[in-house]
């Protein structure tokens, strides 16, 4: 009873504090994880919760053992509580699985996923997004998100799947879930150092190498319309001499026409502001990036069996007429006098007669 309340209390605390934000910020060293194991911000993975789950399991086992020792062939009661044990063990096994997320641009493919606990995983095959569609109702509400995926192994498409919310796909033991999407732009970016001119197609996060080697432009953000001045990219130019941000507008000539002293007032808007380079921005190409959850949970069969077993034994226990479908005569414990044919009360009398064994 006390234990039940303790777990309930932990759950309660867990919903009050925002969960799961702390863990990612901590290092991976064992020592640095101790505070997070006791922290209220990730309570469902904390030592408290693990201990409570373990204690509950021990308690269930002890109660079950007592029942066995008392030779009460109360199979249903054992099944009922044993199935909770299965669920707990199955849930614990989940931590040995894979829980990752991957973003694939339409037409692109990936073979590595970022795990939510940090680090990444090599899939051993690649996933290509052939097409992504976001459909909307007339009133603007989202209707369907669809990703057409190809699973590619050794340069061969082995399997294809249409991923939708509520319609996951699986390949080689991994399950894939439509989780999110976003619009992304690729920008036609041109740079020149006075001698050489290079045009590249860049996405957010891309790094464009410049000359000489060791100098590069990181594409921080792409806007299709920044402050009503049209398309723009924010670059972080990194060279051995230092680094600085540069905003490159597609319509920089027109903007400068309106504000002739623009570069004096805001040198970071000067496309030639980082000598010797000059940047210019061409067309933006909009495309979708689909966000896919990638998971494998080895505990699921156990949890499913546990959940099903719990339900079945619960139903049999409380809905079956005495001596009926339970398979065991329900009055063999000699309590028929008390039960008087009332559902549920059979269980009552039985346990009461047994003593104080039900302190769960």
């Amino acid at each position, binding site marked *: *009873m006390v234990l*039940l*309340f303790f*777990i*309930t209390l932990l*759950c*309660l605390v*867990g*919903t*009050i504090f*925002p*969960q799961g934000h702390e863990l990612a910020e901590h290092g991976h060293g064992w020592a640095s994880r101790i505070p997070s194991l006791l922290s209220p911000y990730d309570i*469902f993975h904390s030592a408290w919760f693990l201990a409570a789950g373990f204690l509950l399991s021990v308690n269930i086992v002890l109660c079950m053992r007592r029942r066995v020792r008392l030779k009460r062939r109360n199979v249903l009661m054992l099944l009922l509580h044993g199935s909770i044990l299965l669920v707990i063990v199955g*849930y614990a096994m989940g931590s040995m699985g894979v*829980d990752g997320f991957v973003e694939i641009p339409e037409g692109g493919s990936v073979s590595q996923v970022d795990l939510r606990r940090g680090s990444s995983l090599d899939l051993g095959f690649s996933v290509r997004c052939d097409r992504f569609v976001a459909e909307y*109702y007339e*009133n603007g*509400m*989202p*209707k*369907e*998100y669809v990703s057409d995926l190809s699973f590619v192994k050794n340069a061969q498409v082995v399997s294809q799947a249409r991923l*939708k*919310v*509520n*319609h*996951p796909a699986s390949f080689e033991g991994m*399950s894939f*879930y*439509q*989780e999110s999407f976003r619009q992304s732009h690729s920008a036609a970016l041109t740079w020149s150092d006075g001698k050489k001119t290079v045009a590249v197609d860049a996405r957010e996060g891309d790094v464009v190498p410049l000359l000489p080697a060791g100098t590069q432009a990181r594409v921080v953000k792409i806007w299709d319309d920044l402050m009503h001045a049209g398309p723009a990219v924010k670059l972080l130019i990194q060279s051995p001499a230092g680094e600085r941000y540069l905003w490159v507008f597609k319509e920089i000539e027109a903007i400068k026409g309106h504000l002739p002293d623009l570069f004096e007032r805001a040198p970071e808007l000067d496309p030639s502001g980082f000598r010797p380079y000059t940047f210019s921005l061409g067309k933006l190409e909009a495309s979708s990036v689909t966000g896919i*959850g990638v*998971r494998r*949970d080895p505990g*699921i069969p156990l*949890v499913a069996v546990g*959940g*099903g077993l*719990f*339900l079945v034994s*619960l*139903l049999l226990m*409380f*809905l079956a007429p005495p001596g009926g479908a339970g398979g065991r005569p329900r009055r063999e414990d000699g309590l028929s006098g*008390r039960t008087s044919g*009332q*559902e*549920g*009360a059979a*269980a*009552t*009398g039985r*346990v*009461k007669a047994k003593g*104080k064994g*039900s*302190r*769960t």
Partner: protein
Amino acid sequence: MNSGTIIGIVTFVYLGVFSLSLVGQIMGKKGLARPAFFAALGGFGLHTAGILLRWYESYALGVGHVPLANFYESLVFFAWATILVTFLGMKGGTRDTVLAYVMPAAALMLGYASFSPGVESEIHPLIPALKSNWLAIHVITCFLGYASFFVASVFGIILLRDPGATPGENPSGTMFYRCVMIGFIFFTVGILTGSVWAQMAWGRYWGWDPKETWALITWLVYGAVIHEKVREGGVTKRVAVLSLIGLASVLFTYFGVNYLPGLHSYL
């Protein structure tokens, strides 16, 4: 006449039944119980028709789905399920007594659904996450669970008000325990179907979303109710009080969680 109007009318029918029961109780007029019961039955029929009509209306709008997809629809269904449990599970004087508790609650829920500016009563199409066959079965089982727990608390209150109640022999105790058990079974099915759905939609059967966590809390509290009843050998005051804590937990699982960030925000 649309379903919204019908639900509005039903609200007043339930209020009327509540008034009749109240007058009957205060004036000691047992004769009022019968008209109150028939009015409640009529209101329930209309209520059912309102739900069915809303279902039909959603198809007429071309966005057909079971009317269990937003807060308004869930309130209407919660009220309906509570009365259903009362009608199916009880008869005679017990039923009339329970109706006196259930009717104002149902009227409150329907009134809140119909007249609160904060509750959107329009029919909307389903967002992708809700497009699943699990929607109906998950919502129906959860709310039948809630409804049974609610009726159990009514018996809990009746037991607490009756100082001479002896465990075991008391018919309210029997009804109390039955309602708790039925609720526990439905709620368990609700959680299990919910986790199957969560596995399909979000890729994890359990993610400690506030709604999930509070459902577990509620489940644990009712588990405690059952264990305590078994341990004490009957529905004692402790058990009844525990069930009221359970009801508070049910209400928080249903209403309160909406104020916490989570994935169940649409209900």
